[in-house]
């Protein structure tokens, strides 16, 4: 007794159109997803990218460009190392889009505060671009972005274009500077207090290493930014992305299905170590 049933396991082919380096261990891939997709995807969502014979990994979309997708990948394991070794014309397997993305209502905020650490800017980049594409004159975007060293900053080639937008102010910081670094030195959270002006009008989107996110959330709360206007994007080990394999659980939440973006007022009691 066998039937052809719909399966979530079959990836569709995604052709690599281009690939470029962002940092010594991070690359961005431009992918054309050739066959029918449930949807292109929303900022904050992710796809499972893979190669049969190696495996699949969840990677957030870092941008949308002419009907194509951008994924920014750090090479840290067997799958990611193979993914960044691709050349134009190569084919990857793609499953998705999955997950709950960033709140698009935040694009209407008077003040959008984006707080990113390291690779955390990748899932936030679509929101920077979306803001720039449709901001009204009174709206402001503050992008606070930090990394360990200047060499670890992503998307540096785009900073000038972002800065040029009248509504955008870009604040960079590193933990450890190089000679020639002219911006701030210090952890990201250190600069938060001076960047929050009208907390009630501020929507905050946060993504980065988990310890950085925890401290950022504490600081944002202290500054009076409402928890229901604060969002985080989490990273967890994932195998299925459809809420079944169990790996991505955060307490009772399934990061692949209830996240990866969470509204902070709905995360009370979950910021326990080892949950």
């Amino acid at each position, binding site marked *: *007794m*066998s*039937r*052809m*049933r*719909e*399966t*979530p*396991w*079959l*990836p569709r*082919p995604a052709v690599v159109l281009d690939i470029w380096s962002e940092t010594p261990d991070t690359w961005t891939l431009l992918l054309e997803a050739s066959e029918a997709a449930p949807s292109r995807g929303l900022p904050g969502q992710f796809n499972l990218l893979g*190669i*049969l*014979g*190696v*495996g*699949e990994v969840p990677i957030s979309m870092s941008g949308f460009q002419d009907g194509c997708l951008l994924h920014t990948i*750090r090479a*840290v*394991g067997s799958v990611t190392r193979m993914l960044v070794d*691709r*050349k134009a*014309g*190569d*084919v*990857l*397997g793609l499953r998705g889009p999955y997950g709950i993305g960033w709140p698009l209502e935040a694009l209407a905020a008077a003040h959008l505060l984006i707080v990113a650490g390291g690779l955390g800017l990748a899932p936030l980049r679509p929101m920077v671009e979306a803001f720039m594409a449709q901001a009204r004159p009174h709206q402001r975007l503050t992008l606070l972005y930090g990394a360990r060293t200047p060499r670890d900053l992503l998307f540096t080639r785009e900073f000038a274009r972002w800065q040029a937008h009248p509504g955008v102010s870009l604040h960079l910081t590193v933990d450890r500077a190089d000679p020639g670094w002219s911006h701030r030195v210090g952890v990201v959270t250190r600069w938060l207090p001076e960047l929050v002006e009208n907390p009630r009008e501020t929507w905050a989107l946060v993504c980065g*290493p*988990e310890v950085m996110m925890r401290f950022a959330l504490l600081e944002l709360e202290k500054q009076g930014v409402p928890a229901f206007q604060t969002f985080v994007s989490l*990273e*967890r*080990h994932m*195998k*299925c992305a*459809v*809420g*079944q*394999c*169990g*790996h991505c*659980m955060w*307490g*009772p939440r*399934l990061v692949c299905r209830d996240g990866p973006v969470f509204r902070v007022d709905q995360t009370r*009691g979950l910021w*326990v*170590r*080892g*949950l």
Partner: protein
Amino acid sequence: MPQPRLASWEALARWVDRLVDAYRVVAPVFREQTVMYGEIQGWGEVALDLYERVGPGRYEVAEGPGTSRFRHYPGGGSLKHWVHPPLQPLIRGSQSRDQMRLTPVEPDAPPTVFWGIRPCDLKALEVLDRVFLGNPPDPFYQTYREAAVTVVVQCTGYGETCFCTTVGGSPGVVAGFDLALTEVEGGVLVEVGSPRGASLLEGLESRPAREAEITQARSRVEAVARHLPRRFHRDTVIQALRTAPDHPYWDQVAAQCLGCTNCTLVCPTCFCYTTRDVPLSLGLEGWERQRAWDSCFSLEFAAVHGGNFRPGLRERYRHWVSHKLSYWVEQFETLGCVGCGRCIVWCPVGIDITETARQVAGEASGQRGME
């Protein structure tokens, strides 16, 4: 539904011997010193008249007299092996740099009878339905589940580690089954729960059951429900597990837990899996992506490149219990635990999940209170 029937043990035996010709029959068997579920080729393999002596970290089987012939409460292993197999191929094919040729594995299952399963095993299937028959349903689980007819044996006794009533279950079945058997004096009462069950019954010689037989079946099952001790207060525990992540008891139990994953292996509702790519014939014929049972107790279960979210056994044990007895409700609107007690029996150091529940909820411990 048709009225209950009564069958003799001889008729039951002939029926099973006919069923194995038309179906894959999974029934309680005695293998590897354990009463477990296995495929049978005939009535002779069905495990009867075997008495299980169980306790925390203890399992022995002996023959002995008793009022019931089915005495697996509920034995080792579970039906998970057939509805959520330990190894499940998902897709096959090949992928080179510029080409991808993948095909989905088509789920397939022969007509199957789960014969002689316990009510807690049926409940476990319903619990797994919430995980795998969501939106969209898992094609493999759906195929395996739909291919299986359930013939439940209601409990006319219970094991020392049973606690189905504590978690909202019962030694009897009311709905969701195809056929239900209950041992009574003089034979076995057979109740029909579905049209599929009714048609399966056609191969069984039986007569209409008498009122006294129906009453006896009912009261035997009700007696079990009455005598099963309440191990903990379910709703209190569901709440406590959400609010007591720092309870000192977690350190206590972590000092004993070996992280051996036995509990997740024998649990009829644990479903976590990993995926991996394996070569077909040294890779010459392509590759296969498969899913395989995994356990939240394994060290790397919650690891990402930057670190491990549950690096210690304390966190991992806490997660397993909290998921089973609390988070499931938020995720799937049902408790994950069916009270079968297998995890207590098969834990090599005898950790008792009901003791954990009592401790964390602040109830007095050691109240396993037998009748």
